């Protein structure tokens, strides 16, 4: 029965009439399910087949507003279906459904051409937003914790980052793009409520512009249960990723700060500012 109900639907969202071995699906269905006075075995199993696909596709659709905006609904649904055939849900919760979508887009580029790189970034970003929502947080690393460390040992200090904090190095500024997409969706919803047809049409026709390629570093984080994105300077991104990989403070700074012309004192002020900000945002936590 599982093979019947998890099989992709036809273009008009019905159960496929041919089974994988060429037999009529109605023959296969008749072996499993009883017909009744109103529905054939095929029709009874088709209810489950449709419910399965509507449920998983709706869930991905909700989770991926950016991908939808780039691909349009038809291409997006084709991508989603191909993805779910290759990687059906392996988790008790639909939350995890987009977990391998970025990987799928990269390894199966035909569904997203010619915007595969942008779509890959979007899938990573949209998955980061799922992860940041309900991943654990640990006790904060505070100024008092820092003062407990003798100054001579502070360079050797290993700081941990909150497990929920997501650090992304992207080829496109998808953070701004997603904000624009969300804004447009909100406007469309408001437009529907206010019922002004010309305004509605104008909004529908005005698609969110695809962003041009530009190296972008973003932290996706949460504060008071809300999700936020924060742009990072490349050096800040390098320091944070080094800390996450287990580097000491000294090592992280050495990796992060370019050995270039700028004087050390310029950097000291900047880096201190970053750390102050990261502590205020609660990104640093105690090592376990």
């Amino acid at each position, binding site marked *: *029965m*599982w093979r019947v*109900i*998890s099989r992709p639907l036809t273009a008009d969202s019905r159960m496929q009439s041919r089974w994988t071995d060429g037999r009529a699906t109605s023959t296969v269905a008749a*072996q*499993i*399910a*009883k017909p*009744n*006075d*109103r*529905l054939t*075995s095929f*029709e*009874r*199993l088709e*209810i*489950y087949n449709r*419910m*399965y696909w509507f*449920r*998983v596709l709706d*869930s991905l659709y909700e989770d991926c507003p950016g991908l939808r905006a780039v691909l349009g609904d038809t291409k997006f649904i084709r991508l989603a279906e191909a993805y779910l055939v290759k990687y*059906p*849900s*392996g*988790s*008790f*919760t*639909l*939350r995890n459904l987009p977990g391998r979508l970025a990987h799928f887009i990269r390894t199966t580029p035909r569904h997203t051409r010619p915007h595969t790189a942008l779509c890959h970034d979007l899938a990573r970003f949209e998955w980061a937003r799922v992860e*940041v*929502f*309900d*991943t*654990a*947080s640990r006790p904060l690393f505070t100024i008092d914790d820092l003062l407990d460390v003798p100054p001579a040992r502070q360079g050797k200090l290993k700081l941990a980052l909150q*497990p*929920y904090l997501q650090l992304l190095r992207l080829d496109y500024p998808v953070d701004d793009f997603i904000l624009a997409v969300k804004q447009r969706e909100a406007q469309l919803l408001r437009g529907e409520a206010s019922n002004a047809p010309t305004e509605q049409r104008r909004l529908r026709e005005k698609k969110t512009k695809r962003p041009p390629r530009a190296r972008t570093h973003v932290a996706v984080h*949460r504060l008071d*249960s809300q999700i936020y994105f924060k742009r990072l300077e490349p050096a800040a991104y390098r320091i944070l990723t080094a800390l996450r990989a287990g580097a000491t403070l000294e090592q992280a700074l050495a990796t992060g700060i370019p050995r270039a012309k700028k004087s050390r004192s310029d950097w000291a002020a900047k880096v201190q500012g970053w750390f102050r900000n990261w502590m205020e945002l609660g990104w640093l936590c105690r090592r376990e």
Partner: protein
Amino acid sequence: MPANKFNGYTDYGIGIGLRIPHYEHILSRKPSVDWFEIISENFMVDGGRPLEVLDQILAQYQVVQHGVAMYFGAAAGPNKEHLRRLKTLTKRTKTPWLTDHLCWGSVDGTFSHDLLPMPYTFAAAKQTAANIRQVRDTLEIPIAVENVSSYTEFHVSEMTEWEFLSEVVELADCGILLDVNNIYVSAKNHGFSAYDYIDNVPHHRVAQMHIAGHTKFEKYILDTHDHPVLDPVWKLYAHATKLCGVTATLLEWDDKIPSFDEVHNEALKANEFIAQAREAKIPVPQKISRTKIR
């Protein structure tokens, strides 16, 4: 039954499902509600907003855990990691009893996210009962299983759905979460009498009831949980209450969710039927031994 070993000897009254669109209303207005049912899987996470909201709810309300992915009917038995997460959550919520469905829904680690009907066979009943016992022994709280709504029947079935439910709960010695809307939906879809179903399950095991709305199509009824409860379902609820006693009752409203007050007022209509059932002087359900169906 008002209080029995299958609901931890509680008497919880009328509750509603805790749903995201109502969070703000509940947390800011603190309306008086007998209890909330939470979907366990939504809170089996490591942190963030779900658990923050849950802790605020727990500080003020009684909460019962209802699952949608334990799949008591799974041939492979309960998933160990799932049970571990579920147990962590039960310690947080202190749920007096825990419910999930008499169904299957995953195959070899792939999840349908649906509540799929079981073949009603003796072998399946035995396996399901063993699974329920394992869950209860791990979680160390009473378990009640819910009958699902369904749209198909299987050739291999050896008994009716209510005989299967009775067989499972007797073998597992567990409770029933009697969903009267699901009984109505399945009765219409499969052409049996919903009253026969309710008359023939072990009433002393009913730990909780569900009521909900459904949608009628030309050839079948879909269990959509997006409407008020329909009249024939209220009648069934009154009938079940006469037989089982006044039982913890929960309204499920999961789609096109209206305001908190609208959902809560719909649930409170159950009071009328409880009053009717009380007038009819509800006898305490006798522990009936199961009808021999072998």
